[in-house]
């Protein structure tokens, strides 16, 4: 939900936060994906510092939400799982940032 679509409830802005993105693990993954065109699993493993058992399910969750695309490709005869941020994912991150800004503004002003 976009930040201006509230129904006057004081905690509505918090309700608008996208829980799929909000988890610290997934937020970290999305941060790295937003600065590259594509990356493989090893890159995300090294950069996020997550374990394999932690990264895989979180990537699947992001894929199910449509925020990332995961494709298996051969790059120089080596199988690679390439992960990319989708357009929907970029939009979702933008809306998340705006919603967080609203929440933080309300908290700081209160």
């Amino acid at each position: 939900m976009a930040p201006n679509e509230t129904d006057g409830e004081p905690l509505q802005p918090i309700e608008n936060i996208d829980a799929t993105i909000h988890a610290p693990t997934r937020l970290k993954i999305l941060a790295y994906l937003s600065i590259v065109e594509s990356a493989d699993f090893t890159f995300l493993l090294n950069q996020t510092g997550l374990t394999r058992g932690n990264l895989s399910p979180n990537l699947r969750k992001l894929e199910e939400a449509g925020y990332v695309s995961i494709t298996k490709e051969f790059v120089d005869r080596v199988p690679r799982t390439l992960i990319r941020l989708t357009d929907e994912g970029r939009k979702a991150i933008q809306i998340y940032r705006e919603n967080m800004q609203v929440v933080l503004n309300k908290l700081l002003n209160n």
Partner: protein
Amino acid sequence: MSQNQDLKRLAKKTYMSYHQDGLVDLLIGWMIIAFAAMMAFDQSAFTFLGWLPITLYVPLKKRITAPRFGYVKFDSEHGGQGRMVTAFLIMGLLSFFVLGILFFLVTGESPPSFVQWIREYTILFYGLVGAISFMMSGLITGIRRFYAYMLLSLFLTITGQILETREFLPILLLGVGILISGIIHLVRFTRKYPNAEGDIYGS
């Protein structure tokens, strides 16, 4: 705006990590050593040997860096391989341009006064060309150790000029220094990023 700045910092940090493998240092060191060999033995074939390893940069990146660091394609906004290629092109063009001028002017019978200066301070001139190349490469790529190489280039060539060493010696030492730096970075990189076992998604 600060969020964008944080992302830009993250992108820069990630891009720098990608180039901590020391490969570019190994190539540059090799090229400089080959140039010094050309000066020492007066054999232009060494120049060709010096440029040859450039063809190995991408294959080495794929063979050494990608399996350990992971495969990544930086977008143009946050880095991109274009920067490194641009830096190489600038260094190469600068070197060829300067050395080309040298070849045509220094061998002339009545060279302009600045060429007289170059004849008298050849080592220093090479050092200045090298320093400018490293400085521009550092600005383009953001790799800080290029600034250290810039200072090393100036230090060695000024020292060589003062001590009146053979022309190739400061250049050789510069090349060896950069090569050693590359080896150290490569060893550190391989220790920090052990070789991943193929594609491990889902395992």
